[in-house]
């Protein structure tokens, strides 16, 4: 059976006065039914733009989208906007980063949920939709849902609002649920609750989930597959086991080494990734990560001149790096043992 979502060589470019912003530049991945894909990357790596592209939410902006996005075999790139609108909120739904601003301040939360339900279920009566909203609010853990359904968003805490967003997204039993940094704006204790909720609901509703985050801890908890993005491109793509067990891209190493881990000695230093994400108008030549990569000098200059193709490390595990397999094994072993290689980059 074909995957639920297939994205092939997706490119999303925005022409601006300063030049062409290549927010997403040739991204390929797929999501199986009922499975979870984590998309990881820093700010500006193209994660959110990719997800908005899948949802067709670049409609009406200056975005130029090429490539393929197939939902259940149906091509969405260049499809009739009305058709994409029907799928949006129905077959595919989305939760956003900031639940404080994602709900309309002037409408009752129940009305906001029923609105999402009724637009896709034209046969449903007001009463049925309201009952559906109450059921969903109960499912996502809102207490006294039959009362709270008439509350306004400002009467809810951030965590509760995110629950409402999830209830809204699930109102039409979507086959694909995209969660764009669903926990970033929340307290740490609430973050865990929301992640648990997403996982529980996923098994209950059987939806495929794409979870977008810059927090590897989040994907470690939820994801079956992980896509690491950098500067609008795929850096590494594989199963969670591949990415956490045998990471094969210096950028992934950077993400991992900069994350505190309970299974490592407390004396192990956290290693930040030097520098800042590149401009998406003037992406660095060759490997876009090379100006920040500690190992760029180990590739005989190819990092600066050649864009590394996405190559299989092991079947199903892809990485876009010029380093040889042996080098990668060696460097990762060093790094995970807590040894930080001296910065061997040539001075800029």
């Amino acid at each position, binding site marked *: 059976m074909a995957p639920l979502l297939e994205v092939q060589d997706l490119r999303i470019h925005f022409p601006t006065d300063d030049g062409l912003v290549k927010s997403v530049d040739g991204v390929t991945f797929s999501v199986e039914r009922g499975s979870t894909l984590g998309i990881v990357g820093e700010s500006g790596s193209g994660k959110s733009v990719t997800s908005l592209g899948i949802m067709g*939410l670049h409609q009406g902006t200056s975005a130029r989208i090429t490539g393929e996005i197939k939902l259940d075999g149906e091509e969405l790139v260049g499809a009739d906007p009305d058709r994409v609108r029907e799928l949006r909120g129905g077959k595919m739904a*989305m939760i956003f980063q900031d639940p404080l601003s994602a709900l309309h*301040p002037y409408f009752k939360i129940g009305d906001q949920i029923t609105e999402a339900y009724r*637009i896709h279920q034209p046969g449903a009566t007001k009463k049925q939709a309201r009952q559906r909203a109450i059921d969903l609010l109960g499912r996502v853990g809102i207490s006294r849902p039959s009362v709270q359904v008439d509350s306004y968003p400002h009467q809810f805490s951030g965590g509760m609002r995110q629950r409402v967003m999830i209830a809204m997204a699930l109102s039409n039993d979507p086959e694909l649920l995209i969660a764009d940094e669903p926990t970033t704006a929340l307290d740490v204790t609430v973050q865990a609750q929301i992640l648990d909720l997403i996982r529980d609901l996923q098994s209950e509703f059987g939806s495929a989930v794409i979870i977008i985050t810059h927090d590897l801890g989040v994907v470690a908890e939820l994801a079956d597959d992980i896509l690491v993005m950098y500067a609008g491109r795929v850096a590494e793509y594989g199963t969670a086991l591949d990415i956490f067990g045998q990471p094969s891209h210096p950028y992934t190493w950077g993400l991992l080494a900069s994350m505190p881990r309970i299974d490592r000695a407390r004396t192990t230093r956290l290693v930040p990734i030097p520098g800042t994400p590149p401009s998406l108008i003037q992406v660095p030549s060759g490997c876009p990560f090379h100006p920040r990569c500690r190992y760029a000098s180990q590739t005989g200059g190819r990092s600066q001149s050649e864009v590394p193709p996405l190559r299989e490390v092991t079947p199903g595990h892809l990485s876009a790096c010029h380093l040889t397999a042996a080098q990668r094994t060696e460097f990762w072993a060093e790094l995970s043992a807590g040894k930080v290689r001296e910065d061997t980059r040539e001075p800029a």
Partner: protein
Amino acid sequence: MISFIIRRLIAAVFLLIIVSMVVFGIFFILPRWGGQTTYGLATEYVGRNPTRSAVLQMIDQLGLNKPLYLQYWAYLKAIVVGGHYGTGVNSAYCPPPCFGYSFKNQQPVWPAMVSDIPVTLSLAIGAAIIWLIAGIGIGVVSALKRGSIFDRFSMTIALAGVSLPIFFTGLIALELFSYKWPIFPNVQFVPFTENPALWARNLVLPWVTLAFLYAALYARLTRAGMLETMGEDYIRTARAKGLPERTVIFKHGLRAALTPIITIFGMDLGLLLGGALLTEYTFSLHGLGLFTIEAVQNQDFPEIMGVVMLAAFFVVIANLVVDIVYAVADPRVRY
């Protein structure tokens, strides 16, 4: 909600009392600070050719020898129960609500003022309807078609609209449509109850002139509000639900964009109801604006005091209505 309205109502009454104190202070306390004597002050209220006995009578009448709070009390009392003014043959009764007695015109202020209200009311409300429809409509279209020819054109016109004074646009309108091409000849106020068709026809030019100024302002405000709102996260949420763009714009977008305009509209309308001075003057419509201008020219203090209180009343009421409407429109305001 009911208690919210009641509290606002009480606050509005208090506000009016404070306004009355300020008005009273301006006319009865400030002149004394400026060196005016009690006799001189009373002279201003006596009318033309004041005799000494009339002035002394007036001092007694207004209680200018008494403590200030008693004077203020007499002023308030007259509003509620009325009062007698003048002496002998000139004696006149001013029935409540008595906002003073114009000695220059030999009549109580209130009836003269009230007879001018329909003119201002017709002018302000008619213009308000036009400017709301035109301003908001143009603002929304401009925001949605940002950068288009329509947007640029209408925003240029709007800039002209907010910049050109009424005595310019009004005179041009009169010259063109009343004299050169007499589509609306002989502009004068005809009461609605007398002849609705003529009432409307004669008010078209003042309405459009006044509305042009405000429509321009509202178009710019609506455009800015709409641009801001359409970039909000909840608009993205509305789109993500799969709502048609129509619903996204008019239900989710416009609702939020228009709420701040309620406040401005209330203030504008309240101020206009106290007299649209320039428009009334330009088109010779005898409303509260012209009433005010004439009162000032004649230095008719009781009339000025009366019209200031009436204007303040309109502004306070408009604010009260705005607060209530706002609470209905924005649930976050209720408490």
